């Protein structure tokens, strides 16, 4: 049962004239959504850049406390997940539904690994007194400007983490839907569109990691 291909296609909704139009609309809709996601994060990147300019010394002090190697490992994890996601998309186009589900589960597992590592990193930050907003004494007490960057790090990574958590949840839900035959016949489009989202969350992290952990060290 696992090595079979299914016909690939989509069910056309009534407001569309044909499948092509619907496919096109869905793809465009996702791209536009990603544009808004980019600008959402751009506000945070802007703040990071301004802090880099205004307080280079303080930013450096804060950056040296961040867990560089966990951040780097997490970037690698996400790049791997992007690869498995590409695999899922390719398999979906060929109609290998079972293998596609396996690739999706692998992607979700890598996403979860990222979140686990992130959680561990937060724990280490907490232990090192790098979480000033929870009311504990702050490790770099004499340097208030470094607090800004530390706080920005938490806001940015938390927002990215929220996107990734949503992503994993949607992925698991779609994998559950796709465990029955017929998914690719009616909804192949969804995996393509979802793939864009996953790659883009990856892309956001690719910007976040150097901006918060590397530049200005």
């Amino acid at each position, binding site marked *: 049962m696992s090595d079979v291909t299914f016909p690939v296609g989509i069910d056309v909704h009534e407001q569309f004239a044909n499948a092509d139009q619907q496919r096109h609309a869905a793809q465009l809709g996702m791209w536009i959504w990603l544009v808004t996601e980019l600008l959402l994060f751009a506000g945070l990147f802007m703040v990071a850049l301004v802090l880099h300019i205004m*307080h*280079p*010394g*303080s930013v*450096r002090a804060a950056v040296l406390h961040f867990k560089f190697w966990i951040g780097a490992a997490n970037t690698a994890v996400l790049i791997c997940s992007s690869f498995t996601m590409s695999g899922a998309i390719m398999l979906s186009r060929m109609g290998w539904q079972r293998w596609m589900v396996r690739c999706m589960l692998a992607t979700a597992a890598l996403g979860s690994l990222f979140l686990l590592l992130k959680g561990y990193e937060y724990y280490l930050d907490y232990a090192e007194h790098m979480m000033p907003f929870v009311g504990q004494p702050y490790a770099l007490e*004499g*340097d*208030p*400007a470094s607090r800004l960057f530390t706080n920005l790090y938490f806001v940015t990574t938390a927002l990215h983490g929220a996107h990734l958590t949503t992503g994993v949840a949607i992925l698991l839900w779609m994998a559950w839907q796709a465990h029955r035959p017929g998914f690719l016949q009616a909804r192949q489009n969804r995996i393509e569109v979802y793939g864009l989202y996953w790659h883009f969350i990856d892309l956001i992290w690719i910007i976040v990691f150097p901006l918060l952990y590397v530049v200005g060290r």
Partner: protein
Amino acid sequence: MNPNDHPIALWPASASASAVETDWLILAFTVLTLLLVVPIFIGVTIFAIRYRDGNKVNRQHSDRRDRMLELGWMLIPFTLTLFFFAWGARMFMDHKNPPANATRIEAIGKQWMWKFQHPGGEAEINDLHVPTGEPILINMISQDVIHSLYIPAMRIQVETLPGRYTQLWFQADRPGTFRIYCSEFCGTDHSAMDGLLTVMTPADYSDWLAHSGSSASMAEAGKSLFSAYGCTGCHRGTDTDRAPTLAGLYGRPVRLAGGGTVAADDSFLRDKIQNPGHNPIAGYPQVMPSFNGIIPEDELTRLVAYIRQPPTTRKLSALPTPLIEAPPSIVAPSSVLAQRSPLAEPSLP
């Protein structure tokens, strides 16, 4: 408008050459505006009447487009207005470059009052006295939220920001009493944050200064604070063993530990007193304690006024050795910034 103006005056009083020029600018711009819009108003009205449905008039037209006409009414008004951009920009840059000989008045905006201090140390609340014929530079800062010092008679305003000095200058050319406002919304009593600017002849002004009873000039007051807060313990004259010298520091570039330089201006000096650990300076370990929340804003202004003085007048080398033995961090603050907790969100009823 000002207290003694006629109740239906339609043009504000002006008290400086620059204000008069602003009036000319806006009048000239209004004339251009009228030239551009009156044809539209007339056109819309005439067309609406003449080409009313049912009127027997010649409506012959074709679909041909005159591209030059369309480009013309796009670009000609734009080009004409650019003249006013240039005029306004030149005046703006004048307002940003105070003359070197300007009399410097320190202003602090706080909820909800203005505090002014003259160079001789005379302090005023909300009201300000200045002489005619002399450029007046107001160096200002906010103690809490953003305010804006607005003097309509001079046609000028600049916002006061917390944590950073901003400046405006003007030169009054006639005596009179004019209004001062805060024009950036700053909370409950925003509209009570206004006062009067009294412009006096130089003779009246020196008379007023003589009777305002100041004990010490800004710099002298700053000098005693410099000792009182224990700054002399490390920053002794031109001695650079324990800390960088402050003699002749003002206005010079300072090298930072993280690379790059920064100019030692008012905001830099104030920032260094408040947060010494922030952007450390090359060559010295960071040992100075923070005075954040310890020195109130007006005392900071006096300290900066003292450090700003050229070294010869300041005679740093003649300063006494520390007057206070206790470490500065436990000096009792004379008035800590009244700050509300950021967590003080009231609960909904």
